[in-house]
Structures are given as structure tokens and as C-alpha cells.
């Protein structure tokens, strides 16, 4: 392919690609997101290719097996969609490929047993499945649809149309005005108005001319969060295009994407996308013949959580130790190498081409005022349906968990939702009508964060959950400031005591006071938000804290020092499964007679409870 010299050539190429495509061509879309890959999607894709080679399908064009990014419904993987029939298959195994080829591709019929069913209803199309039905895919519209390694796919889906529009018909000021008008807020966590950030940066460049930079923050590191990864893997060109538009607005010629090394697939796909765009002149010098130069380099992070903080990220990009520095000055004033820098989350960047293409008013119409647009969440935890979702801002927490997530299996209500990752807050069931937008979440003591959403059920202990997140942050603290380096460790000391049933009501109040000191006294947002899980769990679940320290009980049956396992003799049928499973060998009993646990030898691992087919093992 030759370099595309102008917009007319780009549009001409797009049209020719559309014209060459047969709308009736059979396409098997196999999800190659990491979730499905782990479940063997690679082999599923190979099996389809082999099956298609072995059997000739009577069609005008040979059917295509398309390896796409994440389809979202991770708990049902490996996922396969068959177009144009719009059939949606779940938990597909390599052995199923032949049957799908025979039944669906050759005869146009559905393989009933592989369709998704929920509560007795069987769904043919993904769009009917409750998990997808409630969603509004805007940023993720191409993820799972296009092959991220084929530029032609992205071009047909409209990639680089917005960049062409910006370069040929808009001034940098008009671009910024449009982003401002959309009300887009940063998707990385803090929710700062993107347009305002850009305006601020541009004003600083005018005052102080010289080189400037744009940076894409893909250093997502929250436990249980994989929104940015999905986006970078599934539609890398959207991120590149957004950054190119931002670079044009700022007058930057160099961009960096900071991706953590633990995301090899994202790094590979972004790297291939950059090479493709460069080869066609969509990145590099004289883009589309407009005289605009811009290139992007990928920087691999070594996996430090704190490097997601923008000043630490910049330090890491410059080759210094990844430690934050106090703001102001903000990166928009003094960023990379002391120059004005626009640094946005990759999800924020991916929103930009949509705003340019469809208009600021259209975008502002999505979501709610002050939190416009849609947000990608990774919905995980004790849920029937888990995976990646995209919903309009302002949807309530309860609808996300119960309607999209399908609720907690076997329980009528969830206990709490942790939004915003380890720096976020734990929102109880009672507040399930809280709209998910920046301001409402802040009001209940949590944050939007980058979009992790961890759902807990009655078997999760809030003290244990707070301990888990705090432990994560303690390991990830850079150690530059004392409240964070020593404070997280000290808060953990309190929680460790509570988990053993030690401590007093006074200790809970002291912990609250310490948490406030750390929140107020820390240098960067890592320490500043680290106490959130503690503050919110004490606020909403104080009873559970009191149960630990006063009654020496863990109501959820998690904290090992406070629980005992026993067997209900009325329910136990003496199958002996628990006795065979027990690693301590401390369960005994005659065949077909109630068994008993020797509490003195029991290590409270809970394996007997998980194994018991009749639910006779109790924990208290």
C-alpha cells in the first residue's frame, strides 16, 4: 500500500474497501481477549480455520474467521459470533467448530446447545442478552467487531475520518472548543474536564513557545480492572487517532503511550497499529498532505502502580525513578522535560474522535449533565455475569449489578460494590440507587476511578476487603512521603488486629483519625485516596467492625481467627467428600452417618464447605 497523500485518497480507499466487501459474507468472529484466550480461544479459532478448509461451504466468498478483541462477556468465554446471522455462541470448545460450520455456516441454522440461556430463556443474538442489552457501546463499538491487527477493518469502521476532518477543516481552537463543548471528563480517575486541560496547555504553549507533547496513560493497574487493556487491544487505532487530534490542537509533534509491561497483547497490537498508520502516512511527516507532523512511541512501564499517577508517569518516561512530584505545576504547564504536556487516559483519547465525528452536542446528550458520555467498566466479583461493559453515565449502581451483572448467584442481594479500584470506596446495597457519575460517587465517599467495579456478597468480610486493598497499596507505595509509606503499613496493623478479634471501639475511632491524616497529608493521589476503602467501610459497615473487636466474630465467616467450621448432623448424609478433601484430615465419621470436624486441628480453609453437596458445613 502506498502512502495516502490526501483526504480524498483516504476516503477513496475507504469506499473501495466497502465496495469490495460482500455484506452476505459469512464471518465467524472469535473473541481473542485475554479472558477467552485463557480458556483456549486460540484453539477455537484454529479449529474453525481447519474445519473451513476441510469442508467447502457453498458461498460466493469463502467464509472468514476473524480474530477480534474482547467481546465483553468474559464469564461465558470463549465467545463466538457468526455474522450475518447474528448468532451468539458461548463457552465454545475447539470440538464445537465443526458442528458450527456444518449447522450454521452451511445451513444457516443455530446450534441450540451453544446459545446463551439465562433463567430458562435462550438467546440467539448477543443484542438480546440482558448483559449486552442494557449497554451502550460507543467507545467500544469496534472492539470485538474488527480485527485489531487489520488496518482495513478499522478504516471501514471509520478510523481516521475525524483526524482528516480536523486537519483539513478545523483550527486548533475549534478542536478544543468542541472538546470543551462535549463536557468530556478524564477517564483515568480524577474526572478533570478534558477541554479545560487542553485549553490550559495551549495557553501555556503560547506564553512559552517550544516543543510540547501528548501522552496516553495506559498504565492501568487496579486489581480487577481491565478497561484500558480491552480498548488498546481491541481498537488501538481509536487511541492513536485521538492522540493525533490532541496533538494537532496543542501543536505537538511527538506522543507517547505508556503501557504496563504486563499487557503484552496491548503493546503488540498498539505497536502493529502504529507501524500500519506510519506506513500509510497517517502518522509521521506531512500527514494526509496537510503538513502536520506527528508520531507516537510506546513506552513500556515496569509495572509500578504509582506510575499511573501523571507526574510519576512523566518521571518514568524521562528515565527517572517513578515517584510523583507535587502539583501545581500541572503537566499542562510543566510536564515532560519541563514542557506543557497533555496527558490523558487512553479511554479519554478514544472518546475524542467520536466527539469530532458526531459533534459535541451529540456527545453531551449521552449520560447526564456534568458527567457526559459513556464509561467503560470492568464488572467483576460475586456476580453471575462478569466482563467488560460500557454504559451511559448516570445509570444506577443497582442496575449495573443486577440487570447487567445478573446479581449475585444464590443470594437475593449484593452486599457492597467497590468502585474506583483500591483507591475507591465500598458502596453498600442500601445505596444501590446511586447514579454512577463523577459527582454522585464522590458524594457517597467513593470515586469513579478508572472504572473497576468489584461486587461483594454476604460471604465477603469488609474488614478483610479493606485489608486486601490496603495491602496492595502498601506494596505499591513509592515511599517518597511518610504518610503513605508508614501510614498504609500502620493502618494495616490496625486491620490485622481487628481480623484477629483484637482491638477496641477506641481503635476503630483511632483508625478513622489516622485514615483522615493520611488522606490529608499524603503527597499524591495514591496516599490521598488509599484510606477510602477504610473510611467507607467504617462509615457503612461499622457494625461489622464492632462484631470483630467486641464480639470477636466475623459475620461473613472469612477472618480465620474468628471462625469455626462445623457440620450440621441433620443435613449431613455422610458421603465423605469433605473428609477426603480436608487437607488436615480432621473430618471423620462413619459412612452414611453424620461426620464431625475436629476444631483443634482445623485450619479453617473452607474446602469442606466448598465441596459439600448438601450445604451441611456451617461457618460461624
Amino acid at each position: 500500500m502506498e502512502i495516502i497523500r490526501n483526504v480524498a485518497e483516504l476516503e477513496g480507499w475507504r469506499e473501495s474497501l466497502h465496495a469490495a466487501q460482500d455484506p452476505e459474507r459469512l464471518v465467524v468472529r472469535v473473541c481473542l481477549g485475554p479472558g477467552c484466550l485463557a480458556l483456549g480461544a486460540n484453539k477455537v479459532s484454529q479449529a474453525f480455520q481447519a474445519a473451513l478448509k476441510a469442508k467447502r461451504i457453498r458461498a460466493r466468498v469463502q467464509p472468514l474467521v476473524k480474530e477480534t478483541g474482547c467481546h465483553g462477556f468474559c464469564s461465558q468465554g470463549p465467545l463466538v459470533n457468526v455474522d450475518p446471522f447474528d448468532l451468539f455462541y458461548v463457552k465454545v470448545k475447539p470440538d464445537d467448530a465443526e458442528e458450527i460450520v456444518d449447522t450454521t455456516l452451511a445451513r444457516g441454522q443455530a446450534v441450540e446447545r451453544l446459545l446463551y440461556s439465562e433463567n430458562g430463556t435462550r438467546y440467539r443474538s448477543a443484542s438480546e442478552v440482558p448483559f449486552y442489552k442494557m449497554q451502550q457501546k460507543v467507545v467500544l463499538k469496534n472492539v470485538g467487531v474488527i480485527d485489531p491487527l487489520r488496518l482495513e477493518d478499522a478504516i471501514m469502521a471509520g478510523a481516521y475520518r475525524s483526524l482528516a476532518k480536523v486537519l483539513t477543516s478545523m483550527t486548533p481552537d475549534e478542536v478544543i472548543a468542541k472538546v470543551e463543548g462535549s463536557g468530556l471528563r478524564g477517564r483515568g480517575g480524577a474526572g478533570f474536564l478534558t477541554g479545560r486541560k487542553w485549553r490550559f496547555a495551549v495557553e501555556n504553549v503560547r506564553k512559552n513557545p517550544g516543543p510540547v507533547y501528548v501522552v496516553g496513560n495506559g498504565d492501568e493497574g487496579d486489581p480487577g480492572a481491565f478497561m484500558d487493556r480491552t480498548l488498546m487491544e481491541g481498537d488501538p487505532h481509536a487511541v492513536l487517532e485521538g492522540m493525533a487530534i490532541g496533538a494537532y490542537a496543542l501543536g505537538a509533534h511527538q506522543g507517547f503511550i505508556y503501557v504496563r509491561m504486563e499487557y503484552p497483547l496491548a503493546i503488540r497490537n498498539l505497536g502493529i497499529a502504529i507501524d500500519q498508520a506510519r506506513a500509510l502516512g497517517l502518522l509521521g511527516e506531512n500527514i494526509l498532505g496537510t503538513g502536520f507532523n506527528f508520531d507516537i512511541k510506546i513506552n513500556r512501564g515496569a509495572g509500578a502502580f504509582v506510575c499511573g499517577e501523571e507526574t510519576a508517569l512523566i518521571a518514568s518516561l524521562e528515565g527517572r525513578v517513578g515517584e510523583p512530584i507535587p502539583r501545581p505545576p500541572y503537566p499542562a504547564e510543566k510536564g515532560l522535560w519541563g514542557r506543557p504536556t497533555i496527558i490523558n487516559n487512553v479511554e479519554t483519547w478514544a472518546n475524542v474522535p467520536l466527539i469530532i465525528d458526531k459533534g459535541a452536542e451529540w456527545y453531551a446528550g449521552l449520560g447526564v449533565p456534568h458527567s457526559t458520555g459513556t464509561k467503560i467498566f470492568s464488572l467483576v466479583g460475586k456476580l453471575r455475569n462478569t466482563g467488560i461493559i460500557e454504559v451511559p453515565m448516570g445509570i444506577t449502581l443497582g442496575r449495573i449489578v443486577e440487570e447487567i451483572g445478573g446479581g449475585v448467584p444464590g443470594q437475593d442481594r449484593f452486599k457492597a460494590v467497590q468502585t474506583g479500584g483500591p483507591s475507591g470506596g465500598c458502596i453498600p446495597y442500601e445505596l444501590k440507587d446511586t447514579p454512577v457519575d463523577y459527582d454522585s460517587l464522590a458524594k457517597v465517599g467513593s470515586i469513579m476511578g478508572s472504572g473497576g467495579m468489584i461486587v461483594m456478597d454476604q460471604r465477603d468480610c469488609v474488614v478483610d476487603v479493606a485489608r486486601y486493598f490496603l495491602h496492595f497499596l502498601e506494596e505499591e507505595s513509592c515511599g517518597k512521603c511518610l504518610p503513605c509509606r508508614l501510614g498504609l503499613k500502620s493502618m494495616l496493623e490496625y486491620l490485622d488486629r481487628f481480623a484477629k478479634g483484637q482491638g477496641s471501639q477506641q481503635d476503630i475511632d483511632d483508625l478513622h483519625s489516622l485514615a483522615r491524616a493520611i488522606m490529608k497529608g499524603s503527597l499524591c493521589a495514591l496516599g490521598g485516596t488509599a484510606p477510602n476503602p477504610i473510611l467507607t467501610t467504617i462509615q457503612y459497615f461499622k457494625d461489622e467492625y464492632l462484631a470483630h473487636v467486641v464480639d470477636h466474630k466475623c459475620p461473613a465467616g472469612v477472618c480465620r481467627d474468628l471462625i469455626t467450621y462445623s457440620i450440621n448432623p441433620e443435613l449431613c448424609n455422610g458421603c465423605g467428600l469433605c473428609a477426603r478433601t480436608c487437607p488436615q484430615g480432621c473430618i471423620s465419621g462413619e459412612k452414611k452417618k453424620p461426620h464431625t470436624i475436629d476444631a483443634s486441628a482445623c485450619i479453617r480453609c473452607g474446602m469442606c464447605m466448598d465441596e459439600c453437596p448438601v450445604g451441611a458445613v456451617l461457618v460461624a
Partner: protein
Amino acid sequence: MATKKAKKEKAKKTEGNGLVRFSINGQSVEAREGWTILETARQQGFDIPTLCFHPAVQPIGSCRLCVVEILQDGRSRVAASCITPVQAGVEVLTHSEEVTNVRRWVLEMLLANCPASRQIRELAKAHGVTSTRFTVEHPEDACLRCGLCTRACDEVVGTRAITMGNRGVFKEVTAPYHRHSEVCIRCGTCLYVCPTGAMEYLFPQVSAP
């Protein structure tokens, strides 16, 4: 609104002669533009404790003992005064409840983490903190990892013989590759600036005899 406007106008007036006017604990003070709150407060005789600050090196805001509460447009924030530049019209509180809470907790944690430091014990006592609720894991430790020694070695001496190694709770003062530094000129600057006396036992570990 009227007061806000008046404040802004006032701010403009003071900026005219290169001075910034704001208040510390209710007392009106003037500072040169670009000064930090700590510099101004100390010059005016306000007492703000510090450990990681030394006028000879760039401040980094590590120990957070110098935090102050800053009231601006009806909003309050707590910031380290050693790295916060003065701003016209703000009200600075050096001993508000939020500030004291941060300081007392930091000192109590330091008592558990730098138990061997007499200087820290004395500073804590001056702030009414005499015991700690936290576990003392290393009774011989006196270092608070503020990096004043490494900054002085770099910025003042220019040798970079010592450095901060590791991170988080494992952060430590060390020489590159955990070896005795061969570029150390044994000038003793690190010993001089160390606020806790830790360098006295760290020095033989990092410098070649």
C-alpha cells in the same frame, strides 16, 4: 462575592511591587513572589516543624510535618508548606485541627519506625507525642528515608555517592549496587544534614573506609 473581588483587587495591588500579601494564623504577611509558605512563615517567626527540609537543597515534601491548612475561596486544603509557593489572598493556618492530626500521627509512626533517633523522640515530645501504638520492628533504626543526605550529596557536593534504593516500606539509603561507594569523598555533608542522626551508623555502610 464582594469580599472575593476585593481580595482579588488587593492581590493585584500587592503583585505590583513584587510582593504577595496573604495571612498566616490571622496575621497579614508579605512575601516575595516565588517564596514558599514555609520560608515566609519562618521569616515571620511562625513555628512549623520539619525534618526533611534544609535550605541548602531543593525541598521535596517527604516528611509532611510542615503541612499547613490553606483556606482559599471558601475551600480548605492541607499542603506541605516547604513546597507550596505563596499565593495572594489565601489564609494559612499552621496549627489547625487537620494539621495537628497529620503531624501527631506522622510523629507517632516515626516513633515506631525510627525508635533509635533521639531527635525524633524530642520533636515528638514537643508535640505531645510520647508513646506509639505501632509495632517497633527494628529498634536500631533511626532513618526516616527523607533523602536529605542523598539530595545534599547530589545537589551540594555533586558526587552522587549515595542514593535511595528500593521503594515503599523497603526504601533505604544505600550506595549504588549495595556496595561501598568508591566515589564518596568522605566530606561528611550527609552526616551534617541528617535530621535524625541515622547517618552516623549508615555512613560506614555506604562509604568505603
